[in-house]
């Protein structure tokens, strides 16, 4: 028997000792002294990264405060190692701020839509969706009073690839409703990463000295260090990625789309091989359509663009034939008066070129402007919500070929 139970002993109620027996002071003092001595090096080692994480807002930041102040102050929320917190940021923003007429929802590939493109109130809830079933789950989680008039959703093509939808997990509603970066788990995992970046010289002066004053308050290491993050309207600023692309710097992420093309050829990381469509994904969109219909929400769905080079590789390699089936199947099964479908799977389809792309499957803001113009031309329900004059002006006089509007 390996348990430590006292067996076979009949205990009676113990006589109460009237005089208290104190802890041996020397024992306790010794324990405390040695405990503090032991903890000191840990506090010192953890102190610097914790200070950086705390000061930059990467960990333990009160996102609720950020959300509450969004109407008075511009923030840029960009995490280096706590990306799972974006869902919470988006959800809380929608939940606590006034209702928006137009809501963009999807993965990172809807993040180019900005409030400046709209006449009506707008919020970009991108980066919250992983699979086709997540749209309805997210909307059901929201209070009814916060549901929009028009839902603009990006249907990532791989959502309909059965091999992708089985290998990726469905987004957990916990990611939208809990502040993940505030827990010690997240903080512990981040401490070694801070040291790694410190030794590699990746953290700049602003991060180390907490010098983050400016019109836009950065929250998170990517925002402080690289100017990358989410704006108040939920859209995404690519920060130094844009700077590198403009300088034609090979250090830019996915330079010449080589990384994306590598994934396409390997059939990895969203570009899994597949020659059939996932019926479950289509069924979940039908449920979404029914959900929105019952609440008079008009849906504008679109297939976001790959670069022409990447899309060409996908169509011609014989391993991603589900893409050929996708648009006709979606149109047959889903398209309706209250459920528009726009197919923009390539830059050419949007009226853009590969030079307008941030990477192999994300367009710059001007690509999104062109998509909206295409929607206006097809008399989309979005038309009345869009600022067509401003859209034209942004194409005529953008900040640069990736950014349509100033910060």
């Amino acid at each position, binding site marked *: 028997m*390996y348990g430590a139970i006292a067996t076979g002993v009949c205990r009676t109620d113990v006589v109460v000792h009237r005089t208290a027996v104190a802890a041996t002071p020397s024992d306790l003092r010794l324990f405390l002294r040695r405990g503090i001595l032991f903890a000191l090096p840990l506090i010192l080692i953890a102190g610097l990264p914790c200070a950086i994480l705390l000061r930059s807002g990467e960990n333990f930041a009160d996102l609720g405060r950020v959300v509450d102040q969004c109407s008075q102050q511009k923030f840029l929320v960009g995490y280096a190692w706590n990306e799972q917190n974006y869902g919470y940021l988006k959800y809380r923003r929608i939940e606590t701020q006034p209702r928006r007429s137009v809501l963009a929802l999807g993965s990172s590939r809807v993040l180019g839509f900005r409030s400046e493109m709209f006449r009506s109130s707008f919020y970009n809830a991108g980066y919250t969706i992983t699979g086709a079933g997540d749209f309805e789950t997210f909307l059901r989680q929201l209070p009814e009073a916060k549901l929009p008039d028009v839902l603009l959703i990006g249907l990532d093509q791989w959502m309909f690839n059965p091999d992708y939808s089985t290998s990726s*997990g469905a987004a957990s509603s916990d990611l939208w409703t809990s502040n993940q970066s505030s827990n010690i788990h997240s903080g512990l995992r981040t401490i070694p990463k801070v040291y790694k970046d410190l030794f590699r010289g990746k953290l700049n002066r602003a991060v180390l000295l907490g010098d983050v004053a400016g019109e836009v308050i950065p929250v998170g290491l990517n925002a402080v260090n690289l100017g990358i993050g989410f704006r108040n309207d939920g859209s995404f600023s690519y920060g130094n990625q844009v700077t590198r692309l403009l300088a034609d710097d090979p250090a830019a992420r996915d330079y010449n789309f080589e990384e994306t093309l590598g994934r396409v050829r390997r059939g990895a990381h969203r570009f899994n091989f597949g020659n059939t469509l996932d019926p479950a994904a289509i069924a979940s969109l039908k449920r979404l359509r029914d959900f929105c219909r019952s609440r008079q929400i008009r849906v504008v769905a679109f297939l976001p663009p790959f670069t022409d080079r990447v899309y060409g590789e996908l169509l011609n390699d014989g391993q991603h034939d589900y893409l050929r089936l996708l648009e006709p199947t979606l149109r047959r099964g889903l398209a309706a008066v209250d459920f528009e479908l726009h197919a923009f799977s390539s830059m050419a389809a949007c009226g853009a070129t590969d030079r307008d792309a941030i990477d192999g499957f994300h367009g710059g803001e001007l690509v999104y402007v062109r998509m909206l113009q295409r929607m206006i031309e097809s008399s989309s329900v979005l038309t009345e919500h869009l600022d067509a004059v401003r859209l034209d002006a942004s194409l005529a006089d953008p900040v640069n070929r990736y950014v349509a509007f100033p910060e």
Partner: protein
Amino acid sequence: MAFNSFEFALFLTVVFAGYWTIRSFRAQNVLLLAASYFFYGWWDYRFLALLALSSVIDFAIGPAIAAASTASRRKLLLAASLAMNLGMLGVFKYCDFFVDSLVQSLQLLGIEASASRLGLILPAGISFYTFQTLSYSIDIYRGRIQPTRDFVAFMAFVSFFPQLVAGPIERAEHLLPQFLEPRRFDYQKAVDGMRQILCGLFKKLVIADNCAACANLTFDHPNSYSGMTLALGAVCFAWQIYGDFSGYSDIAIGSSRLFGFSLMQNFACPYFSRDIAEFWRRWHISLSTWFRDYVYLPLGGSRCPKWKMIRNTLIVFLVSGLWHGANWTFVVWGLLNALYFLPLQLAGANRRHVNSSPAVTAFMPSRREAAAIAATFCLTTLAWVFFRADSVTAAVGYLARIFTMASGSQPSPIPSSVLITVTLFAVLEWSQRHRAHVLEFTEARIPRPVRWLLYYGIIVLTVAYTGEKQEFIYFQF
């Protein structure tokens, strides 16, 4: 608040500091009671009243049982305690399960049926503290202990925060007396308690959480992976549940020692068992001995006709399965373990390894021992598939893919680093298999600087290799 949280670290520090500045053990009990209710309320304040009600009722019934003049009256009062505790458990945990099962059974018979579900949230720790209070009432009935008149001590005993939410399930005769007498700060025990806490955190954050990420992928998408990958996924789950639960127990026991309390050992290297009977003497010891003492033995145990012994064994394992959750998967898991156990019992071989350890005289096990250990591990892992799966059908499908060595469309998601980490940890546990926990050692043998370096090393490894945050598995029970 979970044990692996900053909030708990702060909470424990504050309670520890307050506790040892108090001179009177009665006042210490008050502090522990308040702290425990705060701790429980942090989980869900709505069920504080339920915890209090369960405690108050058993505190009141205890003296009544002891003072009852007739056997029938004593039996009636005990029945009241059983009905109240098991009734609470039944309503919150099993009502919807039984209703759904009944409806499904009627539908299978072609009878149209439907019923509304209660949809109640399961109060944290209810399966643990109800069993703890039941042991109090039953032991008074049996005359093993006398009821206590110290209300605060009793309430603190039931709600003692280190073991409230996920055990060990303590017996009144072991833990309650510790609340009725002064506690003395013991430096060695406190230090060993801290070591045990560190050990528990490592098991939870590194072993359990990293294995969980792998097991979740294979169990959530079994048709995407090959049979070999699914087998490794099952092994990952076996280590996940062990790291998770034994890690929690280590933190509970270690934390208790900081306050001068001694809790029972709950795990004794179960995966080094040489047969299933030994496994059940080493796994979740507090629960298995509870069922032995309060279900199996009262039914007659093994001192009865063979058919009754088989019946008693089946009942205990099935009830044990059901204790874990309101799902047929747990019932099948329990049944499977019963089927493993019965042949040993019928052959009189279930007590072969009592009071013995594998490889007593050598570091390495003999070939026979190694084969027995491997076979027992495989059997328990096979049963864990039912424990983890969402349904019996899913579990059968999972196992079918393993045994038919099915091919998969996706590469294995289980990194070799996880398998190496688990293997190294298993070797470490093996080297410490005669100890209460992995970090228990005789201090005099190792100089303090070396010991401290070891602790720092474990902390660094824990921080560097901590997995994705996962809830403790046994909180759902």
